[in-house]
């Protein structure tokens, strides 16, 4: 592919290297071609040299794998990632989560898993699982209906299908302490394990906001441009119609003029610059000091609803600045059962 840039009235053009690499990379990382095309078009207008958010290739997973378990042994597990079967070593230090910490032998064939691994120094081709999350799920949204310990929740899915949540009996009290208003109209954010058509909630992901869904406080009026990096809380969401291993994020401030669904505007309780799908942002996990450049892959409508803080390492400022895909969250060093990490976000406008 050639890249041309109009430089004068005479239509002089020049070539720019590296564009092919960006395009090819989009295929590897599972980013829809439509998004990567925007990166190409953006690069056609601006000189992106030295501006990694405009030109850098989006992150490729280096420490996270997703798939379905094909087999479990005491020292290894086999995972089918959709294209091939991959093997990960398991050691006594491997932490396995299946609603709670369990032994790796508790995993069953067919369980969907997210694995954070590291390559062994002695044998770089061998990958050792550090953490395994099996059947991990999360439901974040507005409660539609309550029936005892069962809830229907509008999680903002594209197909409008409500999510069914069942509170695990052992965790019901713990969840009700953090979510005292389990009534229609109020917000719910719980983590648990997937069982067929419902999520068995085992822990609250945050504390319940005192307001109804759609009534999150607005950010204070302050003059001047948005100061970057922007600090806040980064959370994760289950894939809606995204590929399971997608590295990306749902951004809370999608331009309402060009959003797929009519947005009510606003950016939640954080001042975030408006972006579109395909824009890239740099996310840094303040707790693990890991950074990645990620594309905006969906609208973070639910992140706008919450004005909470993350206290994984210190207390973050109020508000969710990114709703990461599971793979991106784990790639950045987050633990799914924690629900969030303290993060900073940098956009190219900063």
């Amino acid at each position, binding site marked *: *592919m*050639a*890249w*041309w*840039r*109009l430089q004068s*009235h005479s*239509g002089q*053009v020049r070539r720019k290297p590296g564009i092919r690499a960006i*395009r090819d990379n989009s295929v590897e990382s599972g980013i*829809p*071609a*439509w998004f990567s*095309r*925007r990166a*190409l*078009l*953006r*690069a*056609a*207008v*601006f000189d992106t040299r030295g501006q990694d958010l405009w030109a850098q290739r989006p992150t490729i997973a280096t420490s996270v794998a997703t798939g379905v378990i094909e087999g479990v042994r005491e020292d290894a597990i086999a995972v089918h990632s959709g294209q091939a079967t991959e093997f990960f070593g398991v050691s006594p230090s491997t932490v396995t989560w299946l609603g709670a910490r369990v032994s790796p032998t508790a995993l069953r064939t067919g369980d969907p898993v997210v694995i954070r691994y590291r390559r062994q120094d002695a044998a770089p081709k061998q990958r050792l699982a550090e953490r395994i999350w099996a059947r991990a799920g999360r439901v974040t949204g507005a409660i539609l209906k309550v029936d005892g310990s069962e809830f229907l929740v509008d999680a903002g899915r594209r197909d409008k299908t409500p999510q069914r949540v069942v509170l695990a009996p052992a965790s019901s009290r713990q969840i009700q302490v953090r979510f005292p208003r389990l009534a229609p*109209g109020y917000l719910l954010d719980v983590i648990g394990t997937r069982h067929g058509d419902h999520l068995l909630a085992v822990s609250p992901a945050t504390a319940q906001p*005192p*307001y*109804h869904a*759609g*009534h999150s406080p607005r950010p204070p*009026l*302050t*003059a*001047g*441009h*948005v100061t970057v990096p922007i600090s806040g809380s980064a959370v994760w969401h289950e894939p809606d*119609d995204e590929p399971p291993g997608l590295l990306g994020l749902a951004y809370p401030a999608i*331009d*309402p*003029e*060009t*959003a*797929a669904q009519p947005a009510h*505007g606003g*950016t939640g309780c954080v*001042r*975030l*610059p*408006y*972006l*579109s*799908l*395909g*824009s890239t942002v740099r996310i840094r996990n303040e707790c693990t000091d890991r950074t990645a450049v990620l594309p905006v892959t969906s609208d973070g409508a639910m992140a706008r609803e919450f004005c909470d803080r993350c206290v994984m390492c210190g207390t973050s400022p109020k508000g969710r600045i990114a709703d990461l895909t599971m793979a991106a969250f784990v790639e950045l060093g987050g633990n799914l059962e924690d629900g969030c990490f303290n993060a900073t976000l940098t*956009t*190219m*406008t900063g």
Partner: protein
Amino acid sequence: MSGVSFLAVVREVQVPLIAVLLIGGCAAKARQAFGTHHESGPTAMFPPRLRRPAVIALCATELMLGVALLATADRAGAGVPAFAVRAATALLFGTAAAALNELRTRKPDTGCGCFGDLSRTPVSWRVIARAALLCAAAVASIDVAPLSMPDSSRQAWLTLAAAAAELAVLAALSPEIGQVMTRLSHAEPCELREVPVGRTLSTLYASAAWRRCQRFLVATAPIDVWREGCWRFAVFPGVLASRRVDVVFAVHLTGRGAPVRVGMLDTGTAFATSWNASFPNPLQIYNRV
């Protein structure tokens, strides 16, 4: 002028002042009543389904009392009607002071909602004191004689001074003044401003970059539009040197005459399908996955 007559002037000022405040408060609440946010003010303590009706009822009550205060201020409304309206006004402000005190205890993060969206600052002692002061002012106005024009210029100046002094006290007790000043001095930075696509395209069509590149375009409707902070990008199909190209314009969102940059991308075979696809609405293809 004796102290007693000054006090009489101060009492006379209360009726029009309270009436104006009530009507102003109603006007400010009206937007809140018909909008989606009913989370401020004592009505926030109501069950969610009753909040909106409560805001509307409060707004209507304020409007009726404000108009009734003005209607019963002169000789025509003197007597029982004036007494009833002023007593009801005192009751309203007394109830408001108590409700705000309760709100401060139960929902310390909630604003008083007295002037709708402007009253988002959490309830403080200033706001409760203001309601109590207005209650006292309404009580003081109960047996005031029917209002008439000042007899002398001195009395007129005294009336103005009394009104100004009371307004100053009320302003000192009003956090809304700070909100108004902030809003008047606030200009949303371009990256946070909601800008219609139509305005962006108008800016583009009026730019020198558009005139320069128009001859390469095969359509004047964009096939893709998206935004990156202060820049909005619009892509148009074009032909350059017998090759299909995408002409992409970046328009800065600072308004008319804003900088416009342009670039071209050879579509190549990789994006041939996007060329051949039909685009019924360029804003809807934006989110194709």
